[in-house]
């Protein structure tokens, strides 16, 4: 995919997000303009509280901005329409979070099937778990899996629907270096094999080497943008 001209899929202009807590207003985003392209691997960096998660949630249709416009292809993500946003998440978005958020009462296979069952053209849960290297853990419950394994199940659950967008909020935040690399490898592989637009939030600046593009946020604004000529392999990343 590298080399081919990439079409913009996300287009956000002037998005602001204000949280009102009684008297106090917190401006989490203060006019962010940003574009993401098809198949791109983007890393978001920035200090705590800079608005990374807020931006990701807006892109994923979990939250709507207070002002500004944001579109994914022909979907308007700035309109607070629950049903439309649910539809969008269901058909196009895969999420991965720091704390896995697996359903404890379902096995690995069933957690993945949970997403597959409501998707339009999913792969089989076995395929998705194969992709993350967990073919031998299909019938384990979350309590019987390590943290890294749980996170890979969460990735499998995110990719089983063949999403157009994969959004990851600190996916390696709770993992050690070796496990973290394993997870990053899976993300890179999904991005490469499925051409999924991938946005990853991290506090580990060295992960930025994996990305096509790195955005740095500070105080609710994108303050710096860096294009990588060549992407590093996850194994090369220092932790």
């Amino acid at each position, binding site marked *: 995919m590298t080399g081919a001209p990439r079409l913009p899929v996300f287009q956000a202009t002037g998005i602001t997000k204000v949280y009102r807590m009684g008297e106090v207003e917190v401006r989490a985003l203060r006019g962010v303009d940003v574009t993401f392209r098809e198949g791109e691997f983007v890393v978001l960096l920035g200090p705590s509280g800079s608005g990374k998660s807020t931006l990701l949630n807006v892109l994923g249709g979990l939250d709507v901005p207070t002002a500004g416009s944001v579109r994914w292809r022909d979907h308007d993500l700035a309109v607070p329409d629950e049903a439309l946003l649910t539809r969008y998440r269901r058909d196009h978005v895969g999420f991965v979070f720091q704390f896995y958020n697996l359903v404890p*009462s*379902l096995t690995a296979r069933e957690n993945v099937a949970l997403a597959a069952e*409501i998707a339009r053209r999913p792969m089989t849960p076995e395929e998705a778990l194969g992709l993350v290297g967990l073919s031998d853990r299909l019938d384990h*419950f*979350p309590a019987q899996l390590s943290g890294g394994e749980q996170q890979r199940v969460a990735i499998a659950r995110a990719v089983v629907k063949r999403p157009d967008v994969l959004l990851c909020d600190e996916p390696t935040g709770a993992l050690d270096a070796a496990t973290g690399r394993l997870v990053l490898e899976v993300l890179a592989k999904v991005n490469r094999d499925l051409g999924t637009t991938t946005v990853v939030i991290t506090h580990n600046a060295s992960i930025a080497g994996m990305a096509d593009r790195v955005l740095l946020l500070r105080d609710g604004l994108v303050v710096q943008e860096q294009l990588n000529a060549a992407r590093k392999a996850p194994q090369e990343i220092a932790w």
Partner: protein
Amino acid sequence: MKVRALDRKLLRDLWHLRVQAAAVALLTACGVATFVGSVTTWRALQRSQAGYYADHRFPDLFAEVRRAPGPLAARLAALPGVAEVEARLGAYGTLELERAAGASITARLISQPPGGSRLDRLHLRTGRGPARPGEAAVGEGFARAWRIAPGDALAVLVNGRREQLTVVGVAVSPGTIYAIRPGDIFPDDRHFAVVWVDEATLAAALDLTGAWNEVGLVLAPGAGAPEVVARVDRLLAAAGGGGAYGRDRHVSHRFLTDEIRQLKAMAAVIPSIFIGVATFIVSLVLSRLVATQRAQIGMLKALGWSGAQVAGHYAGMVAGMALAGGAVGIGGGLAMGQWMAGVYARYYRLPELRFEGDLPVVALALALALGAALLGAAGAVWRALELPPAEAMRPAAPPTYRPGLLERLGLTRWLSQPGRMVVRGLSRRPLRAALAALGLSMAVAVLQISDFTEGATSLILRRELEEGQRHDLSVTFTQPRGPAALAELRALPGVLAVEGVRDVPVVLHHGHRSYRTGLRGVEPGARLGRLVAADGQVVPVPPSGLVVSRQLAGLLAVEPGGVITAEVTEGRRPVLALPVEATVDDFLGAGATMARAALSASLGEGPLATGAWLAIDPARAGEVRARLAARPGVLGATWRAATVASVRAILDELMVTYMAVIGLLASGIAAGVVYNTARIAWAEREPELSTLRVIGFTRGETWRIVAGEVLALLVVALPLGAVLGVLAVRGVAAAMSNDLFRIPAVVGRGEVAYAAGLTTAVTLAVTLLALRWVARLDLVGSLDRRD
């Protein structure tokens, strides 16, 4: 001041849990109210009864004989174990009252000695007791029904003589609390009167001057009733009549005591259901609270709070809910008890109602409510007490799941993932799921109990008044009349058929048991009045011998093949020996029936009838009515349709309120159980449900998981409730049955469908609430949760 901070937390937690806390308080209030209400009513009635008996000297033993010479009473008094004896005269007659012209009124006549009786004394409502010949006191029920006051005139026909009497007082007595005409099923104050008359007057009328035929005995302290009964029976053998019996077989005592016994059963059953459900909800709410507050508990302990202080904190929260509910319940219960006891006292015409605040009952109710709530909280409080602080501060490990039994059987293979979440959620906490299902099934059972009374009375009415009595009109003659009277009736235009009936008042004896009732003679092939058993079978009347109701057979301990001695209490008062041919397992009354011809032959009289059943051409009903009214030999005529309508009206009036109240209570139970089960299922599932929403499940799809859990419980609860309901209905039916009614334990498809339908409706309504919870899910916030 650490305590204040912790107390503030307690108040905030309570506020946060206000709906659940209110549910617990409400259920506790219902439980305490029904408990205090029925126990205080029961105790008030018992005290009132005991006080009434003591003040008015209700005897311990009774006997009725045909004729005993006066001095025999003194010999009875001399028997060991007998403290006091009073002999008197008693008889049944017909009463005439000018303002009740045409009504057929039976009078129970009781003599009063010159200075007033020493035992079973009158309690005068107005006026005084009879002191001179020609004076009478009448029972309060009858006096009210006809608005009789001292000064009114009436006449009684007894033993073929007519006595003109002047009313001097209106009274009640312990022996006539439940006043009913022998052979009747319901008290009928308009057609049955208790009349106390001067001893000399009654003796003259009965040809019993210097003799007596009824006696009451008071036992000496410590005397054994059975031995005294045996001694009395030996002395009375020559006087003829049945043996002596205790209060337990005295009709009036028995009815009141039965009622008190039923109240006592009520006082145990209904409150237990409420308190049980409250206990369950407390256990749900508190385990959830302790689970979500793990970290807080750890923090409190790390700060230096002792385990006992922390446990006390949670126990205090529960005690608060229970005591709040208990306080409301006590107020309501005392009001309810006072009201109910008042209703009973009026119904039974008790001279005074001894309702007391009953501090021990109130204290017991509170203790029960508090104990039940703490029991419900025990598990969770124990966990809070035991939690090591270091562990509590770490996030809880993901709960462990294992494929359950259902899955090992392969029964869940076809379930979707949300379906599996439901099944595994339930099977992970089987006890809780079972208790929740049990709670829901209680609602189903309570509804069945409430509905069963309707079904039972309908069945009784159908069997007894529709299939049994098929005449349009029942006519009573002024005196027994021959075939010509029946032929005259048959000749009236509009009369389609006539069947004669001979009713004879009797005391039936078998062994040492006796029972005063009516003996009825009918045509063996009668079509207008039949004996119909509970199952709808028609029991034919044999050409000779008796058919007795199952109740009567039980009271006399007689079976087909046995012989009953029937002592006729009118006319020449013959004593007949009648073989029992069959029993009829019917619902109402304790009577005996035989062929009219055989009865006439036994009585040594011609083919006489005391009344007749008529089939009428409906188009000419008015005409028949007018002609009957003009016939001098006809005392009264009762239209069956009117009887059915009035019985129905009374029952319907009672049922409607009763059903509404029980329906409300049961719906409350169902709603409480469902709400709390759903709420807890929700709270535990909130993180994973928001994950589902994040990955694209719609609100409806997410809601179905919560709803699925509740509906799964419902699926178990409905059949379980149906079975519990049947058992409960049997118990209630048995408790409500007495000598005269046998209440069938009717649980038809309709009753079950109603109970299941209403429970399902309430469940669905509450489950719909969960849609709002789903809509309010905080998708973004939930992603940071570590559990």
